[in-house]
């Protein structure tokens, strides 16, 4: 499992779940029902400020674990399992981890 933090473009479905994403110049489709959860952050080490009223996203962030296949080749044998994180404030997505299969890039 590799750890990344790389920006990705994600299209979401009606319930807010990712259905499609663009990463490394390719488009992927989500091919299985994603799992999501909220994961704690070490905010006291990562942040310089924590003022009252800073709103959501300080203590945890939302993780989506998706299985994707290249959109142009849905029948491709290798499914990728990715952990995506959605930044609570901006709504932007980043790629957090790549599980199993090929490691396209290493940190």
């Amino acid at each position, binding site marked *: 499992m590799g750890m990344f933090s790389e920006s990705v473009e994600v299209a979401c479905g009606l319930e807010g779940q990712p259905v499609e994403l663009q990463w490394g110049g390719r488009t992927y489709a989500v091919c299985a029902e994603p799992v999501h*959860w*909220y*994961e704690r952050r*070490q905010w*006291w080490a990562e942040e*310089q400020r924590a003022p009252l009223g800073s709103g959501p996203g300080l203590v*945890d962030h939302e993780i989506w674990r998706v299985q994707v296949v290249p959109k142009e080749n849905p029948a491709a044998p290798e499914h990728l399992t990715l952990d995506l994180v959605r930044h609570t404030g901006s709504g932007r997505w980043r790629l957090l981890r790549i599980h199993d299969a090929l490691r396209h890039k290493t940190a």
Partner: protein
Amino acid sequence: MSFTHLHVSTAFSAHYGVSWPDELAQSAAATGATALACTDRDGLYGTVKHLKACMAAGLDPVVGVDLAVFDDEGDLRTQLSGRVVVLAHGHTNGAGYKALCRLISDAHARTTGKAGGVVPVAVTRAELASRVLDPDTLKPVLSVLIGPDSDVGRAMGGRRYLRPRTLFKSWLDAMPAGSVVAEVVSHLSAPGEPLSTAHAVRMLKLAQEYSVPAVLTNAVRYCAEDGAATADVLDSARTLKSLPELSAAPLLQPNGQGWLKSPDQMLQLGKEIIHAAGYGAADLQVLLAQTEALADRCRMDPVTDMGWKQPVVPEASVIGIEGDPLAELALRCEAGVARRFPGISGKAEADMRTRLDHELKIISNLGFASYFLTVAEVSRMILDMGVRAAARGSGASSLVNYLIDISQVNPLQHDLIFERFLSRDRATLPDIDIDVESAERHNVYRKIFDRFGAQRVTLMSMQNGYRARGAVRDAGMALGMDDGDVGEIAKQLWRFSARRFREALEEKPELREFADRVEQRDFSGNQQLDLLVDLTERLDRLPRHISMHPCGVILGDATLLDRTPVQPSGLGLPMSQFDKHDMDPMGMLKLDVLGVRMQSAMAFAVREIIRIHPTKADVVAAGAHPVGPDGKGPDYIREDGRIDLNAVPLDDEPTYELIRSTHTLGCFQIESPGQRELVGKMAPREFNDLIIDISLFRPGPMKSDMVRPFLEHRHGFAPEVYPHPDLKPVLQETHGVTVFHEQILKTFDVMTGCGLARADEFRRALGNEELEPKVEEFFRRKARENNYTPEVVDKVWGTLKAFGSFGFCKAHGAAFAVPTYQSAWLKAHHPEAFLAGLWEHDPGMYPKRLLVAEARRLGIPILPLDINRSGAEYRVERVVSGPDQGKLGIRLSLKGIFGLSGAELKRIVAGQPFDSLADLRARSRLTKPSIKRLAQLGAFDSLHRESGGAANRADLVQHLQNLQNGQHRKGPDVIEGQLALPLGDVELRNVKAELPPPTMIENVRAELDLMAVDVSEHLMSSHRPLLDRLGVTTADRLLGLRNGTEVLVAGVRIATQTPPMRGGRRVVFISIDDGTGCVDSVFFHEAQEKAGPLLFGTRLLLIRGTTRRTGPRGISLSASMAWDLSRIETLPFPGKESGSGRGPESGEPGSVPAEFRTPGPLSGIGRNLAITGLGG
């Protein structure tokens, strides 16, 4: 769709919950909820606030508790299996609420109430089961929610299939049918972690398997996501571990999802759980419907279930009456008339009768007769104990209180208004505060418990919230910062709320250094400091723990413990979980029984007087009391010499003379430098003057310059001005200046005809943004209708508006003035006994040594410590020999000697007298250091003299020091068996005379070091030659100087004050004592700049200033320069200082005479606070 949150901790779950009840209620109501639960941990701490908040937000309150349960399989006294939520069923005529209260009291019953107890707050499952059923109907009135933090929920992790089932099954077996509910919670944490959806699914399935209803909650700790970080910090404060440590454990909440989610979000959450469980839409509906069904079952009716705003007082039979309480009250008032107003007749009687009828009518309408009888019963009980008691506060406004002996102030004499205390428009129980001797307070509490029965009495608690210092400490600990570092920062935080920390960083000069460090975070790795500021602000005001309120006692009927949970207080007596804000809503009768040290001091003085003068004639002679026409002395002194202080007439001339002399050290309320100045200016002649004096000496009147015009009018320097002749009767006693609440009430009444009851409502509305404009509108309209000119209306409204919000209630002033007068009376007539009482109970604002100096100033002999004559208390003693023969002196007590333990003290007192050191060692078993210290203080001097030894105190101390060092030889020093023989003390007789006797300076230094009191002589005495050389003026001679004379004064610091001033520039008041009296000096800005670090850092001061005459008997000093008297080389010796403006550095060491170089008694003494009243 509506959703009801059934598991919510408020901020009153100390070190756990984040949000206040009203935030939660408003937030819930805003998203369409119709009910909301409050389930604080371990108690109902936030429940009453929750009720209030729900009623304001239009919600039905649900009431419950989050409680730990003992492990049935482990050690039942210490091991916990987990936590459950228990909810009370509503609309059960209180059966559910009662069961909840009793259950919570069960959970606390085994704890000690002291910090660090090993027994946790928890119930056994058997206790829980027994409380669930209503004993009357045998139906469940509580529901128990088995959720993620229960033993079942905790067993959900891992792959164990059977364990959670076994545990769940044993809950079902143990609890009455229909009382168990499964609580399904998902905080959407990572799969497999606690509070994950997977765990929620397992709980849901378990419920289905056993056909137990499941409800959905969010185990809420904060109102919105933003609170999650605060919850992390609270977890750290609770567990005393830093966030990095907790995170590694892992013991923190898995994420920040425990907030009060909206119905839509809860529906979404429900969907995810149902979906993950593989269930369908119908199951979701069932889950939500079961949640709402339980909510409906638990909707409380605040009135019928919890007794909202229904005052409950002890049963009539308990206070010893049969029949109608009102008739009984009227009867007792009648008896009081004969006692308080003997021989009253004519108009005076008619007025008194009218007033009494008026009060009784209002009391009758409110149904409060039992309340008055109850308070009277407590008051009588205290007096029967022989303990001094006095009502304080607005209770003094009531004639009924005066007649039934609750209060000692005659409201008719002082023109006090009943409506200020109670009126038909105020349906809440009034406050009556009773001051008792501080030393007897706990005994009084115990007696109240005995008298009314433990089921009817409990102590009130108070919530202690985070303030700046505690908040910064806990925030620093959470961040894992260095203790010492945080401690340094905490020290500098003073008198501002934590919420304004960042603002304070910019404003306060003492925080400037810290602010700079925060600024420089990027360069020095201080980024934590910024977080420290933010987290400190987050903690501000959050409750930390509850403790016993310093004076509140709750009295009720036999159902009291059905209406409030109780837990042990540190005192051992039970304490309610409700605080003062909860009393009125819950209809609880609260008595404030305050411990007042001055009352103890006065009681002590009265006992000493009777001990020394055992007959009335002796007391009359000793106190120079009026003998009266029959020559027998006054009625307030009984035949056995006992003085009834409360019966002493309030017109004693020597007492007012003492007060006018400004030598009021030790007198209640009028001993501070500011008050001494004020009484000097005002020169009180009668009791009403004291009431006015005390009422004027408040921040409001002092700040708004009411005092100066008052004094000018009083002394006739300026004509009195009244806005309108109609107001003259109202304002005459204060010469046209509005001082009292009572005057505000009457002003309203005179000009608008509104009646006094409404006038008091108006007064309360002053200063309230919303209500004040309405009052103004009414006042202007009505006053105009009554033909007052616009100018008069404007002027009077200006006064009402300005003074209304902080004026003083005359009844308070009158109640306070009684002990003020009584203490001054004792000082005027029996100063020895009074000072002994002051030394014993230390009631005032000054270090004790100043009151010892006061005795010296008054010529009262201070008798040294003596192993056979000193007791555990200070004692008045007739001096039997020497120059003071025949005088009354005060013998020092053995208490308060550094290092002498309470047990040692007891053994000494029990064993007195001792005929030798060996006898003392054998029977009192004193440690060697204790014996040496007693020798240093001269406690063996008389024993030593009697033994006929030739050595002195220094030789004896050296001898004892040698023994202590273990260098003693076996020999004639200590011979076993010596003690019973009447040979005198061989050991003392044989101490070798080798050393020179200790100097006076050495003796005084030992006294200051070991007792913080200079006994043998005033500590300034040894500096006298130096002071004479410097040309210093003594305090007693200041009054003879002209106004504006430049003088040097010197003394030891006794008080330092920096009151807030108009205009914002700091003024520092420093008082010093030079042995002839006090000098009060004021340092304005320029003098502060010159004196610099000497302002707060110096014990012995030399001050140059000019005299300011403040009144016929008052004089103070406007300082221009100060020196540290112990730095000889800096002092301005005459002739040495040439020209002007030379600072302390101008000294030339070589020119200081050698005779002044001997260190004074304070040299080397570290005890600052006890000696100068200034810490650090």
